[in-house]
């Protein structure tokens, strides 16, 4: 299969208006992914599916990721002149990462037996701009997984044929897989509490210990 750079170059040639970037990965497997802007993600996905050299006809997995707003620390090596001698020092740069939700698609080709190509797209923020194009019209297998991401992360997939909650009930409010979700307080009876459970259960302890 082509490298991600080659795919990106061809995509930029075919769809000149798309904004694409390659997301690096520091983990041992080092699987990098292709991030597409939400507006053009559907066209990018259709290219990946229909291109005769790629033919990524199988979407094996759809995942949601919640990125809350945070300061990210990155270490950069820098050469500085200290008293006339050049020294290499490590500098920590703090950058503010805006909160957003991300959806990851793992694409394979059954016909050409290659893959995966990892396609990502992210929302503008976590509060009111959580819309992304649904890729269910391209890969039918994404339907339930997109419903699950809508259920647990709150990403609204535009163009999804049947966007309802999947695991939680319809009346449920909130998105439990988000990092800032607070679970209902039902810790009134905890025989062996510890750590966070202990903290939650303490609220239910009687003011005076029963005799």
């Amino acid at each position, binding site marked *: 299969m082509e490298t991600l750079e080659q795919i990106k170059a061809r995509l930029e040639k075919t769809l000149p208006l798309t904004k694409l970037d390659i997301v690096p990965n520091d983990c041992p497997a080092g699987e990098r992914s292709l991030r597409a802007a939400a507006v053009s993600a559907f066209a990018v996905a259709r290219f990946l599916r229909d291109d005769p050299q790629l033919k990524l006809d199988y979407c094996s997995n759809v995942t949601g990721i919640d990125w809350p707003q945070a300061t990210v620390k990155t270490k950069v090596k820098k050469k500085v002149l200290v008293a006339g001698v050049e020294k290499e020092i490590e500098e920590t740069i703090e950058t503010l990462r805006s909160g957003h939700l991300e959806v990851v698609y793992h694409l394979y080709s059954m016909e050409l037996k290659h893959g995966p190509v990892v396609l990502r797209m992210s929302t503008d923020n976590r509060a009111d701009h959580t819309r992304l194009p649904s890729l269910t019209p391209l890969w039918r297998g994404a339907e339930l997984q997109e419903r699950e991401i809508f259920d647990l992360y709150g990403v609204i997939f535009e163009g999804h044929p049947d966007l309802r909650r999947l*695991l939680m*009930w319809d009346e449920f409010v909130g998105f439990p897989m988000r990092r800032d979700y607070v679970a209902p307080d039902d810790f009134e009876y905890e025989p062996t509490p510890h750590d966070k459970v202990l903290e939650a259960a303490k609220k239910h302890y009687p003011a005076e210990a029963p005799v």
Partner: protein
Amino acid sequence: MIEEGLKSELQKQGVYVTTLEGLYNWGRANSVWPLTFGLACCAIEMMAASMARFDLARFGAEVFRPSPRQADLMIVAGTVTKKMAPLVVRLYNQMPEPKYLIAMGSCAISGGPFKQGYNVLKGIDRLLPVDVAIPGCPPRPEALIHAIMTLQEKILAQKLTGPDRPRHLDAAVPGEFPVPAYGADDLEPPKNPELFHPPLLKR
């Protein structure tokens, strides 16, 4: 009331004397029909218990009924999610009296490994009266058989009259349990206050 010694003496002569209560309980205890109802991995052990190797039929409980109208034992075998809990209560309400409930496995007893989850009911005893609880994750089929034998002992010891009489013979006790509704983040109500009385923990 007939004496035990006289009773066995008469039996040797071929005369059987019993009470209506004894006959009624004997009949019920030896034909406990469970509901075909599994929620998670405990149900696999429940199925194994009814198969040839463990042979639940030896205890008269082999007829798993696919309809709650024909069953008199509900084995809550597995994790009860909050989404499933109203349906479990509804099924229990649809079973005819006298009916019994076995909480099988740690999930059905207390939520088990999912106790701190946002989506799992912390024990079916919050909503329904539990007659026998089997710990284990999942319990072995022998444990389920033991639970059914324990339930049989419980049935045999039931008095049909007096203050300890079972629920269905007491007109003052309501026959149905309230089905909780789905709320914004939990069931409404999350527990049945008539049933669920956790011990006050001393810390």
